[in-house]
């Protein structure tokens, strides 16, 4: 018989650890044609950090995203970053890029202020222009300001920035302290169908709601969550590294099973935005958190469907059948 059930799982996850130094850094230069270059050690592995960091630089400088060139991950040319780990790049390096861009912008604002006869604080940058707050028709093109800055004033519009959430080692006695800069929250709901004769679980649907502070790039956030869910489905149902005396016994995709396009359920992703005061434009992180609630939600759904608690992942058909038999015998 096939039985359906629903399960829910919630999580919170820390972003930007502080128990050790956790720095990221960036350089920014604005060119005379109004474009800019960002240099950072942050490395994009496909999660989209280069795109997001370019968006952050563009927003801060007031120029178009297409006018940002990113130089990343080259240790010869770029300033230090700790790494694309711990769901930290948007939060940490995003802040570093924003600071570097802000410093370059400050030079542009000071130079433009003189020309426009107002104080730098009375100016804004946007749409490739620097304009008087509330009077957008009084503006200078950023390209022109950059040219005046470096060739007229001898002040090339460059900036550097780094960010390190204040390191606060934990109390060695109690283990207490403030170990992270920010936290994200999420809930996922899974609906499954369990075949009581074979023990096979099919995940029918997953709905996911994830807080990331601010989705700098909603499509990339969705992509991270969808990918995380596929890892969570694998973790919950298929993926198991079998070790024998330290030797991996299933080092192949025929016996270490990843979800294929046929194993993945319908997925709905909801993005929750509660801006984080310490994040760049309110952003936190999304990478790892995306996969955390998936397996527990599936396990809860299995319980809802057939009344057995699987306490060891993955929930293979063998384990489910065994648990079903045990409960049957308990009843008999």
């Amino acid at each position, binding site marked *: 018989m096939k039985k359906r059930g629903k399960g829910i799982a919630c999580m919170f996850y820390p972003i930007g650890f502080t128990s050790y130094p956790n720095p990221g850094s960036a350089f920014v230069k604005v060119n005379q044609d109004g474009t800019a270059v960002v240099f950072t050690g942050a490395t994009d592995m496909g999660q989209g950090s280069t795109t997001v960091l370019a968006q952050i630089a563009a927003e801060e400088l007031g120029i178009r995203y297409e006018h940002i060139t990113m130089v990343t991950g080259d240790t010869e040319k770029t300033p230090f970053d700790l790494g694309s780990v711990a769901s930290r790049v948007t939060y940490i390096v995003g802040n570093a890029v924003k600071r570097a861009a802000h410093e370059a912008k400050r030079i542009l604002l000071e130079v433009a202020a003189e020309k426009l006869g107002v104080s730098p604080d009375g100016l804004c940058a946007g749409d490739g222009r620097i304009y008087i707050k509330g009077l957008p028709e009084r503006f200078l093109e950023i390209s022109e300001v950059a040219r005046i800055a470096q060739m007229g004033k001898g002040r090339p519009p460059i900036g550097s920035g780094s960010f390190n959430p204040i390191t606060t080692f934990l109390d060695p006695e109690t283990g207490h302290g403030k170990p992270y800069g920010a936290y994200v929250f999420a809930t996922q709901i899974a609906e499954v169908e369990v075949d009581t004769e074979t023990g096979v679980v099919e995940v029918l649907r997953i709905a996911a709601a994830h807080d990331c502070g601010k989705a700098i790039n909603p499509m990339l956030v969705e992509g991270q969550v969808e*990918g995380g869910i596929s890892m969570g489905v694998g973790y919950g149902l298929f993926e198991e590294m079998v070790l024998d005396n330290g030797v991996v016994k299933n080092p*192949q*995709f025929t016996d270490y099973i990843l979800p*294929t*396009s*046929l194993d993945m359920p319908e*997925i709905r992703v909801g993005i929750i935005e509660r801006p984080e005061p310490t994040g760049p434009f309110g952003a936190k992180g999304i990478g790892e958190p995306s996969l955390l609630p998936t397996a527990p939600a599936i396990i809860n759904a299995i319980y809802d469907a057939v009344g057995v608690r699987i306490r060891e992942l993955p929930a293979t058909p063998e384990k489910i059948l065994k648990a079903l038999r045990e409960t049957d015998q308990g009843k008999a």
Partner: protein
Amino acid sequence: MKRAIILVVNGTEHSVEVQPSDLLVDVLRDRLRLTGTKKGCGTGECGACTVLLDGKPVNSCLLLAIRCEGRQITTIEGLGTPDSLHVLQKAFIDNGAVQCGFCAPGMLLSAKALLDENPAPSEMDIRQALAGNICRCTGYVKIVKAVSSAARTMSGAEGGGR
């Protein structure tokens, strides 16, 4: 014992000397420098090495190069170029279907083979056609979406596909 053979890749004839045991994926990547084709597992399990052989998707890590003489081989380099993307490639970009991109060349060629046969696939058809191509990053959501949007574009715009 080496033998000179002619491989027709993306419509161009290449003369290469191969050992009878040389795999197509290695000849494409290491000899013809067509490194768009990826080698993941090397044992026919992941689909990263998918190329089209006479229009059908095959795992080039399971094929002897010598067996491909005289047949039409299409690799990702033959699908489109940065200046002139194939509709599928554009759909992958527009839909965010590429993350690390390691699966993308194989995905795109499997998808092309599908659309060549079935211009109006259902979501299930697409999932079935891509089931031999493993993706670790995307959960397949945006890949499936990209393929169905490409199918719509190609059937909407007469001759829009190539």
